[in-house]
Every structure is written in structure tokens, then in C-alpha cells.
């Protein structure tokens, strides 16, 4: 068991623990902070998978953007204690957990049969920004344009949804 395996097991265990923390927290801010640590552990795993640019993008977009957005919404909505147990029948979480374990067993049985190791460890081009950038802007340029359109549509949609309804005549200066 070399250092890479021990490192992967430690970071993976932290990732799973924070994921469980997101799902089972009773306070919304605790869930958001658990999510932040979860994204950071995933960024560490991306670095071990030779995807350095995506690790930085993960921190910037997810940890530095999405978690901040969620914390803003928690601030706006209020941090009253979350739902009590009276919303659903008491056996529903346990049934969900049992079904989830069944799904995990099925996935694990399939995945562990595949002999998946990298074909040639030294031939990986790696995820350095210049290599990924050359790939994106030469072969996948259409994806960049579509992502731009998608982000524009999302921006307009968010602005439209957050607008106050017009109640009286307002002059636009």
C-alpha cells in the first residue's frame, strides 16, 4: 500500500464524511460549510488524477461561486431551524437509505469486475491549462459558444425571476 493509495483513501473518506454531513445537518449553514469542504476534497482528487486546471476551476466555480451563492440565499431566506420530522412518514429515510445501499452494491459489483488501470502511466498528457485550452479552442469550440449562450440565458433568467413585480407606475431614468 503505497503513499498514493493511503492519500486517496484519506481524502476519499473525508469526501464521503462531508457528503454525509451535507445530507444530515439540521442547520443550513452547516450543510453549506460541509459542501465547501466536499468541493475542496474533490479538487484534491482532481490533482491526483492529473487534471490541474480543473482542480483550480473547481475551487473557483464551485467553492468560490456556488457555495457563496447558497450562503447568500441562506442569509436572505433566514436561518430558522430546518424542517421537523412531521413532514413525512418515519420509515421514508430508512427506505431511501436501503435503496441507496442496494444501488451502491449493484454499481460496486459492476465496477470491481472491470480491470481498470491506466494503459500507460507516462503517456498521460495531463490537464495543464495549455493542453486543455488547445483542445477546447480547436476541437471543441462549439462547446465554448454554446456555454456562452447558456450562461447568457441563465443570467437573463435569474434577473427576470428576481425582479419585483411592478405595482405602480415607475419611471426609468
Amino acid at each position: 500500500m503505497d503513499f498514493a493509495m493511503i492519500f486517496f483513501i484519506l481524502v476519499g473518506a473525508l469526501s464521503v464524511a462531508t457528503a454525509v454531513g451535507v445530507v444530515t445537518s439540521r442547520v443550513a449553514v452547516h450543510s453549506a460549510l460541509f459542501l465547501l469542504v466536499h468541493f475542496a476534497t474533490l479538487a484534491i482528487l482532481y490533482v491526483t488524477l492529473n487534471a490541474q486546471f480543473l482542480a483550480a476551476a473547481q475551487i473557483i466555480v464551485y467553492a468560490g461561486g456556488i457555495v457563496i451563492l447558497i450562503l447568500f440565499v441562506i442569509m436572505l431566506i433566514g436561518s430558522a431551524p430546518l424542517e421537523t420530522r412531521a413532514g413525512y412518514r418515519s420509515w421514508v429515510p430508512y427506505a431511501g437509505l436501503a435503496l441507496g445501499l442496494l444501488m451502491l452494491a449493484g454499481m460496486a459489483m459492476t465496477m470491481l469486475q472491470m480491470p481498470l488501470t491506466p494503459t500507460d502511466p507516462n503517456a498521460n498528457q495531463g490537464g495543464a491549462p495549455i493542453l486543455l485550452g488547445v483542445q477546447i479552442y480547436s476541437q471543441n469550440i462549439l462547446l465554448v459558444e454554446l456555454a456562452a449562450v447558456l450562461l447568457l440565458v441563465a443570467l437573463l433568467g435569474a434577473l427576470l425571476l428576481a425582479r419585483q413585480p411592478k405595482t405602480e407606475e415607475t419611471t426609468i431614468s
Partner: protein
Amino acid sequence: MVPTSYYLILSAIIFIIGAVGVLSRRNALIIIMCVEMMLNSVNLTLIAFARQWDNLNGQVFVFMVMAVAAAEVAVGLAILIAHFNLSKTTNIDDVNVMKW
């Protein structure tokens, strides 16, 4: 070198934790967070396979998935705030304005 199937198992575990969270929590914010966790688990799978087959298309796809996830979270939170301004609750059992 850590085999790819280990990363796939970790991704499956995170995906299932996210799926159980989406199905069993009633607060809309926690559900959005669990959906983001599921998207991240798929990102991990894509990057693991990009290393496995020495093909950068997996990483390009992850880049686009991150853009889509950011856009979806923005619009989803806008919908949540709009609904909260209407009904003052984040419990999704109470999101029944459009029921027949």
C-alpha cells in the same frame, strides 16, 4: 497508481449520498446542494476516465458541466427566492401553487 475503479466507486458513493439526500430532505436549499454533489460525482468519473483512456475530451466535458452547474444553481436559487417571497417557506411540500 490508484486504479480507476476506486475513483468510480468513490463517485458512486457520493452520487448515492446525494440521491438519498435529494429524496429524503424537505428543504429546497439542501436539495439544491445535494444535486450539486451528484454533479460533482459525475465530474470525478469523467476525469478518472479521461486519465484512463488518455483522452482530454473527458476534461473538456467536465469544464462544460461546471458551466452548466453554475447556471443551473443561479436559476434554481432565483426560483427559490421568488417562491419564498410568495409563500415564506422553503419546505418543498408546500410548493403546490401550480397544483390542479
